[in-house]
């Protein structure tokens, strides 16, 4: 099993990872300190990633080129920026990959920028990331049975507001 440790924070909201050049997908989120079975399962999946990943990408290398570099075309960069702002940094607490120093966020920025530069559609990139990391990675909730209540809520509140106001004003008229 992988080592789970709480290390000092490299960046305020990040779980910290001083040896990031050697192993990219090592989870160091404080929450992992208290592991339950669910986490063990999740860690196994992540461990598989960790094994499979270095072969595919340039993991032994410093931050991927487009982690801290903008695309030359301002229109494409704006598109990438808009997408990055709606993707969650998986190693941080409540930060988008556009707002994070975490190495993993840097890698994801690189992915987004290179794919945008290759002409891919932002939503297709989002779907690709969701396939890899799950719905959790997208700050835009996906419309699925599990999120229906989330989208029903505003409609419900609007209906409730209309109902309250109508009742209030009707009585007002009679007065």
């Amino acid at each position, binding site marked *: 099993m992988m080592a789970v440790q709480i290390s*000092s*924070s*490299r*960046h*305020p*909201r990040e779980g*910290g990872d001083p040896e990031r050049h050697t192993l990219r997908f090592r989870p160091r*989120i*404080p*929450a992992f*300190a*208290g*592991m*339950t079975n*669910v*986490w063990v399962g999740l860690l196994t999946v992540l461990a598989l990633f960790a094994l499979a990943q270095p072969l595919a990408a340039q993991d032994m290398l*410093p*931050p991927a080129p487009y982690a*801290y*570099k*903008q695309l030359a075309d301002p229109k494409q960069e704006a598109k990438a*920026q808009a997408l990055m*702002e*709606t993707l*969650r940094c998986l190693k941080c*607490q*409540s*930060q*988008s990959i*556009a*707002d*994070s*120093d975490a190495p993993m966020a840097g890698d994801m920025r690189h992915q987004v920028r290179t794919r945008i530069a290759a002409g891919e559609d932002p939503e297709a990139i989002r779907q690709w990331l969701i396939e890899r990391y*799950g*719905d*959790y*990675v*997208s*700050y*835009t*909730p*996906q419309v699925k049975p*599990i*999120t229906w*209540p*989330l989208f029903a*809520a*505003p409609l419900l*509140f*609007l209906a409730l*507001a209309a109902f*309250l*106001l109508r009742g*209030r*004003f009707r*009585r*007002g*008229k*009679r*007065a």
Partner: protein
Amino acid sequence: MIAEIGLAMLWMAAALAVLQLVAGALALRPGTAHLGGVVRPVAMLQGLLVACAFAALITLFLTTDLSVKLVAENSHSAKPFIFKLAGTWGNHEGSMLMWVTIMSLAGGFVALIEKRLREETLIATLAGQAFVSLGFYAFLLLASNPFERLAEPAPEGAGLNPLLQDIGLAFHPPTLYVGYVGLSIAFSFAVGALVTRDVGPAFARAMRPWVLGAWIFLTLGITAGSYWAYYTLGWGGWWFWDPVENASLMPWLAATALLHSCSVLAARNALRTWTVMLGVIAFSMSMVGTFLVRSGILTSVHAFAVDPTRGTFILALLAIYIGGALLLFALRAGTVTEGARFAVLSRESALVFNNVMLCGILGIVLVGTLYPLLTEAMGVKVSVGPPYFNPVSAVFAIPMMLVMAVGPVLRWREDKGGRLTWPVAIPALVSAAALLVVELLFAPINLLPALGLAIAPGLAVASLMPLRGRNLRRTPLPIYGMVVGHLGIAVALFGMASEGAFSTERLAAMNPGDSQQVGPWTVSLQAIDPVAGPNWTALEATVAVSYAGGSPTTLHPQARTFANPPGNRTESALLTRWNGQLYAVLGEEGEDGRWQMRFWWKPFVPMIWYGGALVALGGLLALLGRVARDVKRLVAIDKIAWRRERQGR
């Protein structure tokens, strides 16, 4: 010794809270009404004792008494004085002690000065306050004792999270807590008024200063927190819809609604049930906020499940207080009559409309914050972020701001449309002109920022309309408060929209000597030097910046490394001009020896926080106006009583 004295004080205060609750409850029965006399002095004494306990904890932190567990875990002898002090509340136990301290002091203060309410209602209020405090005493004494000793004193403390070693954050939690606790007083007033069936203008006037005060502090706390996140996190974002931020926003939304409905009740004796309901909701939101932040549930539902003592405790408190208050409300709401009526076109209606919209936003934030926790408990992790919150809350916020532009010029009870032509037409024209400028000169801009840029100037003009035709020297302070507060909303909105529409970002790997262009700025890296502070070392960049070819100034962004506990933090450098802010961050050194630099030019972004400060200032003016009038009234009553006494003799 100090730790033991502190703990003893805390136990005694808890015992007094029991006495306050029991005596207060008995005093409401016909046979034992004489017990009511005890309640006021007990409430004051209780406040005093907790304050002493808190002072004891502060002393322990200032002297770095490492035999106390809390100090050893959260402080360090080499920390600067101000952070030793702030360390007292920069942790779970200390912050909860601070919470009860502020709450009991506020309760004691109510007992000391409140004279407008019927004595019976006041006693019920204080009993309610004691009931709320008691829950927190139990929580402190049973589940989070701040005075616990270590079997063997630690050789050195573990230190304070570097992120928290910031002057802004030293005062951020106390500010928010004062706000939360002020709402607990409003809650107690609502409970007291429900118990004695005494919901009316007197109740609203007694409650209003507390709501106003709480609201001012919440506004300041949120504004300061947002600025803190903006400059410490180093990526230029100012609001993340983070659950912790939402936890402070929700009470603010509820308090804003409560404040306005309180005014209606005080001035017009209308909206009685609605005001009481909002009083209950506002404090419930403070409790929900505390639960979210303090239970550990945010890190992960599973982290919560691993050590559920504290979380379960707060959850139980939440259920008891909110459930109890709602039950009381359900039982008594029928007996509270509706109050005065009003027409559709009236100031009351506008306030009701905006109250409902505020509650709509509150509902959205609540659902969006809690829903991911719910799905996580069911085994599915989802994220709800800006793409959900921004448009959905705008659905409620935009109509609200439109009504807000008109509401203050409407008359109470009933108004006629014809009178309103100019007060509506002028802001509308301003907004239309702004929209035209935005669309013609700056397109393409996203929908929400464009709407914000259009609405803000109109709203600003509209907020000044209530002063039209008034003698400015004889205008009462609360009117100025309203004008300034509404203007602040317009200013903040403009800042937010401008940031969303016009920010430019430049990421670059630079060698000393290299230059870059960020919007109208030319920035050039001149040197990177090591520097040292009291408990950190840092790399500091010297960056020369010049605006549109003007004379250069230097900025010094730093990357700080803290030793106790080890950690890093970027210290961004900001340059504020009248028309915006330049934001510079020093990143890491790359393989090729070049430095990662990040720059943003954010036109008019400081207006977000200026706006927040204006909103708080508006609240302060209103509060001063109200308090001054109350004091005058008290003095007059005293004088009359004195004269009568003299004539009688």
